């Protein structure tokens, strides 16, 4: 039998969630309506909540007014490069770490775990100095390497988790038939670990796509800026083209947010593995 206090409890909880959802979505709702407004309407005080007129053509105009397409393309290059590099390094490492014990395995695992949460802020000046020394400033490589390195830890983690769930009998059967372990890995195991590979790629990709600090520091040519840095530059103190900014933010952010939502299950299980009894 439900008591009154239980029902009050439930109602409060429900109201809380509704409020939280509204608050969480609020900025993106604002971005959405602002993207359809005309500039004069945006610069009115107090702001309107529903646009007076829906200027759908803003979305076409913004690509002409600002180099948004180019910056998105730059983001794509950096993010793709990082995710592929991270994948290339994480898959073999995860494979042997999940299948074998060997001297140094523990140290390696501990090292990987130590840098899972590493932040580039404490090495940004080193990165700048090193990239300058090797004449890599203002190149995409200078961004791809650190971005991949920063996500590598977690990618190895996910890779281990995935390979652990694939029985060894599969490659053993292949090896009995005469092929080497490497071929067995590539031909047999990889095709069935596509969800794991996809998670690694998406995780690394989204992280690199959203990265700002390193891109801002290590690049100087405006035409090489990825979306994060480019949009930062487009926002001046007065005269910001907010309708284009909001539109381009939605274009830049929504696809990766959706992708990220798909893989968040695997991410969280990886992080909470040790904490939950």
């Amino acid at each position, binding site marked *: 039998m439900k008591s009154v206090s239980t029902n009050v409890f439930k109602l409060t909880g429900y109201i809380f969630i509704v409020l939280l959802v509204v608050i969480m979505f609020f900025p993106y709702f604002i971005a959405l309506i602002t993207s359809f407004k005309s500039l004069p309407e945006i610069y009115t005080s*107090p702001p309107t909540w529903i646009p007076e007129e829906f200027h759908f053509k803003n979305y076409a105009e913004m690509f002409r007014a600002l180099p948004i397409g180019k910056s998105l393309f730059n983001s794509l290059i950096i993010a793709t490069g990082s995710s592929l590099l991270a994948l290339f390094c994480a898959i073999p490492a995860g494979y042997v770490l999940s299948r074998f014990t060997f001297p140094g395995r523990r140290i390696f695992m501990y090292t990987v775990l130590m840098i899972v949460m590493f932040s580039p802020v404490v090495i940004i000046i080193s990165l700048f100095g090193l990239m300058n020394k090797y004449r890599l400033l203002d190149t995409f490589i200078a961004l791809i390497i650190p971005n991949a390195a920063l996500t590598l830890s977690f990618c190895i983690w996910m890779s281990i988790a995935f390979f652990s769930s694939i029985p060894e009998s599969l490659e053993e059967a292949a090896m009995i038939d005469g092929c080497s372990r490497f071929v067995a890995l590539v031909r047999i195991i990889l095709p069935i670990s596509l969800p794991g590979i996809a998670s690694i790629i998406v995780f690394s990709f989204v992280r690199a796509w959203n990265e700002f600090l390193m891109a801002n520091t290590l690049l100087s040519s405006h035409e090489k800026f990825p979306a994060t840095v480019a949009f930062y530059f487009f926002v001046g103190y007065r005269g910001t083209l907010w309708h284009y900014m909001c539109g381009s933010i939605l274009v830049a952010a929504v696809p990766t947010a959706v992708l990220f939502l798909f893989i968040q299950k695997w991410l969280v299980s990886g992080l909470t593995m040790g904490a939950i009894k």
Partner: protein
Amino acid sequence: MNKNKVFKTAGIYIYLVPATVLMGVGIFIPIINVFINSLYKCNAVGKRLEFVGFQNFIKLFQSDLFLQVMRQTLIWTVSMVVIATFIALIAALVLDRRFPGRATARIFIFLPWGISFVFTSIIWKLMYDQFYGHVNGFLTFIFQRQVNIPWLGSAQTAFPALIWVGIFLTIPFTTIMILSGLQSIPQEILEAANIDGAGPFQRFLHVIFPLLKPVLVVATIINVIYIFNSFPIIWILTVGGPANLTDTITTYIYKLAFSYLDMGSAAALSVIGCIILMSFSFLFVILTSKEVF
């Protein structure tokens, strides 16, 4: 787990080479480099000029801004983590139960997580605008008179305004973590408590909360470490202003290096930041490696 095979040939180590090289080049070499550089006088591009021992650190500690920045970083970290965890805990508790619209609610609450801090901060920059911003617009509507608080420009409101954005961006992840912790609590324990006559509050205090503690601790550590990634929030909204009042370790390192061109202090502060970061990472490893190895 398949731990029993010991592979004797060196072939296995080859599989680890790409990862090792990448981590070495991308992370460990830069870390070592900054530690060494902190003991040298360096030029604007980080080239070592002469050995000065701990002079950089002494100069850093003696600057007025240093204490201010450390204090602000502490306030930023503590308020962000505590408030976000509190909200996330309640959210997770509610989301743990079935109710109509639950799936949609989850999607909306997790939404900010996949979106770059940069993009969200830019939107907040508009929302916090003194005249055209929606925060003031909303307050104007509520109080039925013109509200023109200069959120980002005033000394009193700038830091709280930023902290709120930080909380906003921390809630999604923390909620997911606590939620998965809740979902691993065995139903039988909760039912046993129910049968014993425990009401929802008591169930929470004596059953759920104790079992959630490991998850909460891990989530807190992760959030503290993640504070180091909040550079875009501050940089885009206030650039550490007004008057360095919203600077934290992250933005201060950047300013020391690239605005004030004081590479020595920047290196010293980076080392300090690194030590803090590594300490919390170490805690994280200790706490999560129990089950894994």
